[in-house]
């Protein structure tokens, strides 16, 4: 398998940097700049599954936003298929931690959301075609028979399945997943990890998967990219080779798995400590970081802050 160094990588980050201007506050009347990412260079091959770990506030989500085209880098280039990313596109799909399902639409209508309007080939799908596709992708994520349910009638795991189906439905090449399983309970998470691997194998998508779980990163990824504490740099990329993992074997208790896990853990450990000492916290969408109590494992996007910045 070509590991990044192939002829044209699917995704290529070249010396990417991103800064935020922090609005003036009581403590800092002049405002300041916050460097979220610095000098990130990374190639991802087509069909690869790469996971991204890093301490809180290391710019993981910022990196994903850059790939999704929701923001532009201040330095360097983000290339998909050799072309610079200038905005969101249907060749990439984002799966969010909080599902982001449209509550007024049924599961099937949510999946069909990305199919409405003219597609990348300039063709409009008929209502029947959209419904067929929605049913097909709900089946793929194991939700046959739930087409007419509203999101509030579904459990967290089911909601995330719908969200994954919605992202797959318009057939992007790249799936960008931002801690998609972080809000789920352990059992559901494990189940969905399994399903995601199955879907990845059967569809051949390129997947970039952000997580704060080391186990999850090692279990899912062919490579694990470890980000440093802020400003986020690429600290190291760990190749994961767990061998054949068919059957019901408990991969997580294999010696190889534990070895990889430990490697990622020790790489991350220093960075987490540094982040904690500096009191880094999650970077908010408006570019500020609260940097209050050091928080590591639980991210709490503050709703009020979000709605101020984005609603209009």
């Amino acid at each position: 398998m070509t590991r990044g160094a192939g002829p044209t990588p699917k995704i290529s980050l070249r010396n990417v940097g991103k800064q935020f201007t922090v609005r003036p506050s009581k403590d800092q009347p002049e405002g300041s700049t916050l460097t979220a990412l610095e000098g990130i260079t990374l190639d991802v091959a087509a069909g690869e599954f790469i996971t991204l770990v890093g301490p809180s506030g290391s710019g993981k989500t910022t990196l994903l936003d850059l790939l999704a085209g929701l923001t532009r880098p201040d330095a360097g280039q983000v290339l998909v298929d050799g072309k610079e990313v200038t905005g969101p596109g249907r060749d990439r799909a984002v799966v969010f931690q909080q599902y982001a399902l449209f509550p007024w639409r049924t599961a099937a209508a949510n999946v069909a959301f990305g199919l409405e309007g003219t597609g990348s080939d300039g063709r409009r799908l008929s209502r029947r075609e959209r419904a067929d596709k929605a049913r097909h992708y709900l089946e793929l994520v194991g939700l046959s028979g739930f087409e007419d349910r509203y999101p509030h009638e579904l459990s967290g795991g089911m909601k995330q399945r719908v969200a994954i189906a919605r992202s797959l439905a318009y057939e992007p090449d790249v799936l960008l997943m931002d801690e998609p399983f972080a809000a789920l309970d352990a059992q559901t998470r494990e189940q969905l990890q399994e399903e995601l691997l199955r879907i990845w194998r059967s569809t051949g998508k390129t997947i970039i998967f952000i997580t704060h779980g080391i186990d999850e990163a090692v279990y899912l990824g062919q490579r694990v990219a470890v980000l440093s504490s802020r400003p986020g740099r690429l600290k190291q990329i760990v190749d994961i080779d767990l061998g054949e993992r068919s059957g019901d074997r408990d991969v997580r208790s294999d010696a190889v798995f534990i070895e990889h896990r430990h490697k990622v853990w020790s790489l991350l450990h220093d960075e987490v400590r540094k982040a904690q000492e500096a009191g880094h916290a999650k970077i908010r969408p408006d570019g500020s970081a609260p940097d209050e109590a050091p928080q590591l494992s639980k991210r709490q996007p503050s709703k009020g802050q979000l709605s101020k910045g984005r609603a209009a």
Partner: protein
Amino acid sequence: MTAPTLTKDLTAPATAATGRPPQPAATRRLPAVARSGARRAGRGIWASGAIVLFLLLWELGPTYLATASTRVFLPPLHEVLRALGSLIAKGQLQNHLAASLTRSASGFGIAVVFAVALGLLVAWYRSLDRFLNPLLEVFRNTAALALLPVFTLLLGIGETSKISIVAYAAFFPVLLNTIAGVRTVDPLLVRAARSLGLSNFRLFLKVILPSAVPTIFTGIRMAGTSSILVLIAAEMVGAKAGLGYLIVNAQSSFLIPDMYAGILTVSLLGLLVNYLLVAVERHFSRWRTAVGSQSN
């Protein structure tokens, strides 16, 4: 049907073995059903108790408690109902009701269309909001009825002035709730839609508008109530038909039971309109968790 046979099958051997008289599940369940039925009936009685007491007081109070002169101005309920019946029989009530409904429906309709449109624009364009907001605040805090003389002077005492004042009164609740509805759209949904590459217009149509609909309908419901309120007042000042006119005219003609019949119609109409608008609001917000989990 099957439950008693089932319990008999189950309990018969048990009786034989223990010798104790069986207590079939059906008989245990029956009191439970009866109890919950009784509880529901009891709650129903309790909920309508205040209304019943009020009507009783209205019926008996004037006859037994009030002085003769007061009784003239506050006739007992049965006299009012008789007056109501004769108004209906003569077709007068229907005419007044139709006049009032036409006015409030037209004014209300105009208000909803323009308020929703303006609300969407104001919520979308920040600069428009900054420009218009002070003026809107001034108008919003000017009671509609205070402007009634202005409307009458400028538009006469015909239909135009009445429809206009209803539209004015209904405009602001819808406008403010539309703005609030658009402003409180979950930013994550906007992000999700943006990541799909939706244009501004389609984002608005497919995400912002549907998610604002329940809030907009709350405003529409409030507007419905206030449009009737203002209309009745407007009809009292200058009109030749309508429920407000019926009430004032009956008073000045000393047809006191007729006046109360008019008042009763107004309150029933208000209840009905509110009930209908609540039903519509619920229909459009059924995807919301709180409402959905209750109705399902």
